[in-house]
């Protein structure tokens, strides 16, 4: 049986690791982005939406293979979004190990909502 305190410690480490990893990837991609495009002119005044290769995992991974700076940053962003999702997924396992059936169900509901939204069904 895994104690609540132990679960808390693992969740704490998981969150810390996720944030540090994501921030590192964002910073590396950001440095590369500034080297490549630092003297271009940004345009954020009007909303056009991101190109589709920055909106899907396949697109981002494709961009990373060609060292596309914006794809690297976007991977970091995705890691950051994935951090709380990983925390919830771990909680499902932890509650299962504690044989706490009510909370396995509650946590699975939250996980389903998160995956549903990430998969893009939350509204297009």
């Amino acid at each position, binding site marked *: 049986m895994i104690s609540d305190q132990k679960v*808390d410690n693992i969740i704490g480490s998981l969150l*810390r690791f996720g*944030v540090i990893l994501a921030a590192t990837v964002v910073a590396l991609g950001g440095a590369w982005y500034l080297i490549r495009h630092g*003297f271009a002119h940004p345009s954020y005044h009007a*909303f056009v939406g*991101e190109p589709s290769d920055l909106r899907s995992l396949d697109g981002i991974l494709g961009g990373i293979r060609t060292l596309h700076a914006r794809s690297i940053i976007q991977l*970091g962003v995705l890691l950051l979004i994935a951090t709380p999702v990983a925390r919830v997924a771990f909680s499902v396992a932890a509650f299962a190990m504690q044989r706490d059936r009510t909370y396995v169900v509650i946590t699975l509901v*939250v996980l389903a909502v998160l995956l549903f*939204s990430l998969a893009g069904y939350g*509204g297009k």
Partner: protein
Amino acid sequence: MNVLEFTTLVGIVSAAAGFLGALTGLGGGVVITPALVLLLGVDLHYAIGATLVSVIATSSGAASAYVREGFSNIRIGMFLEIATTVGAVCGAHAAAKISPGALGIVFGVVLMYSSWLSIRRRPAPHPDAPPDPLATRLRLDGAYPTPQGLKPYKVSGVKTGFSLMFVAGTLSGLLGIGSGAVKVIAMDQAMRLPFKVSTTTSNFMIGVTAAASAGVYWSRGYIDPGLTMPVVLGVLAGSVLGARQLAEASSRILRWVFAAVVGALAIEMIYNGLTGKL
């Protein structure tokens, strides 16, 4: 202004917001979006997308420490996250349908409220309310560390708290903020949790709530890497510095500074929303 100058400017604004947010305990998210929109002319949708991502970063970073210290109640957090994540998806969905002007006005009203919250006196500890049988069934009651050892507490108003959490989630998804203020009200006022348990559990929940709407924003193309990069890194750096500086002596003045900045942003946001400039 080229990309380098723009990135530096956004980074500085975000770091300042993260610093003030950590010092006042209100989070920086609520300030960054209006600052980006009003000072730097960024489109509201891009600003909301970038801020939402930074909210996940600060919440998860701070939560990693609080969880280990044993203040956050993970069962309460998990249970209420059903309400906040469903609310967040609804809010993110609504954000695409509402005109930028109307969105700006809602944002302004929330800013006004945050401004007021930062300067009012913290309410006196509440008298004990009857414990909720639902809380016992869901095993929400817990204990938190005090200098005298672990102190147990009971939970009341579970249904009211749950409903308020849906509202908090909707606002979070609609405006890209953590809406920690509404979460704390739900837990502090409705569920009668100890204040430190409310604030840390709220913080713990913010990351998951924001991730629920971030998925929608991301797949809809509202999250721009070039803008998100300086916002996330700036806010993280600012809030880490802010958390180290938690000096009580100067926090009173800082709260007034924060309230004044947020109040001014609120008025400008509402004005721009009404005159169709967003």
